[in-house]
């Protein structure tokens, strides 16, 4: 049975008609055309569909849309604003951490959450945080470099992070 739900995505309210089995990923991609969130495995193994739910990285492919009511949902489209890219996005660009780009939205969101929780992560903490985000191009080295760079910039940046 379809129900009407209201979701807060990237600080905007959306009223949606969904089936109980509709995942958040389907809502984002198919109902709202927010295709930055990717689907690869669909079973929680690859991290391509990572979104932030109340600032915590979670997997949109394993969340039912109806469970996400009253939560703050952030997708990759919600990071950059008029002032430009976030330090994490900028560092990914500059350090060559993006190749085919399919894993990048998930990576960037995971890293954004990591640096929020732990502003100066060690190499081990970075790798541990990224264990659920698969990248088949870069070999991860450039990504880890980009995260160190982003952490360094964030710690010297103004309180707004830019």
């Amino acid at each position: 049975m379809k129900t009407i739900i209201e979701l807060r995505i990237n600080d905007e309210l959306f009223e949606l008609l969904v089936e109980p089995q509709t995942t958040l990923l389907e809502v984002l991609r198919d109902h709202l055309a927010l295709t930055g969130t990717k689907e690869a495995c669909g079973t929680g193994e690859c991290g391509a569909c990572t979104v932030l739910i109340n600032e915590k990285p979670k997997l949109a492919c394993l969340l039912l849309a109806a469970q996400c009511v009253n939560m703050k949902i952030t997708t990759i489209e919600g990071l950059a604003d008029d002032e430009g890219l976030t330090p994490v996005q900028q560092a990914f660009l500059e350090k060559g951490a993006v190749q085919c780009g399919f894993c990048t939205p998930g990576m960037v969101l995971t890293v954004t959450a990591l640096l929020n929780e732990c502003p100066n992560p060690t190499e081990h903490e970075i790798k541990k945080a990224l264990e659920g985000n698969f990248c088949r191009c870069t070999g991860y080295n450039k990504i880890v470099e980009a995260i160190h760079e982003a952490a360094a910039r964030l710690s010297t940046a103004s309180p707004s992070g830019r």
Partner: protein
Amino acid sequence: MLLPRFQLLQPKSIEQATELLGKHEAAARIMAGGTDVLPRMKYGLESPSYVIGLSNLPVFEPVDSDGFLLLDSLMSLTDVARSEIIRQNAFGLAEAAYAVGSYQIRNMGTLGGNLCLETRCMYYNQQHSYQFVEPCFKRNGDRCYFIPKGKQCWAVFVADTAPVLFSLDASVEVLSNGSPKRIPIDEFYTGNPLHPCTLSRQDLLVAVRIPINSGLRGTAFSKFTIRGGLEFAAINLAVVLDVQEDGSTCSNARITVGAVAATPIRLKKTESLLIGQKLSDDLFNDAGRTAADEIRPIPHHGFSASYLKACLRSLTRDALTSACSRIPRH
């Protein structure tokens, strides 16, 4: 990948949840974090008519009640790994929670969900086209594809938090048809890969109860995987070491190995080797050898029994060493 159709029920309280369970019985499936049940539904291994989502239930903070640490079964694994009271009293449990899945999975998955994890084998938990030929035991068939001459299911139970709870002598609180019941953790698992937990369809796991030890104690968890992250355990191990006042003589040891059978297994021979002895690297080496001789692991996911034994030897040694290093010094 699409989910099959179902009705989603979202109770607001535990009472409502048990009521719904009693009403729908076998047609309903409980979903806490959803990281285990939803992939199974996507693979077509399960298609319940009702899914009871527990994400709206309130979650209580870990509390010290009468010498027991009481944990909500709906605590996320991230919260278990970070909780100060858990790290102080049962560090091994925090370590095990941190070893589960990935950053995202730990944010979604719950302690109770991990304890009720489905057993796994290389064949069943995947979407293979040949699954639609002749069903295996787990799909109500009569054959095992993983061990082709097998006369039974050989799936193993791989959850990381369960062995620690065995070693900590924990128990679980279950609401059965609405009435509370306490089950020691070693009676919670059946050893039957088709029904790993003793829970019936009306039962709801609500809390985990861990005795708090005020003596000199060290706990540790170790896990072997190939990739080192986002992987179910090839084998995992939990150690609880208690020492006497002198700080070096072992007064009690509880060692539990997981992922080698349909239930975690206590290594009682290895435990008795340690009790009464002075802790030393040589003793830990001996314990590793004894542990490897003590059990016959079920080969799974491409790991042979002898390989798992070799892993068990080094895991035992390493976990004992780190548990020993965590015993508080005066």
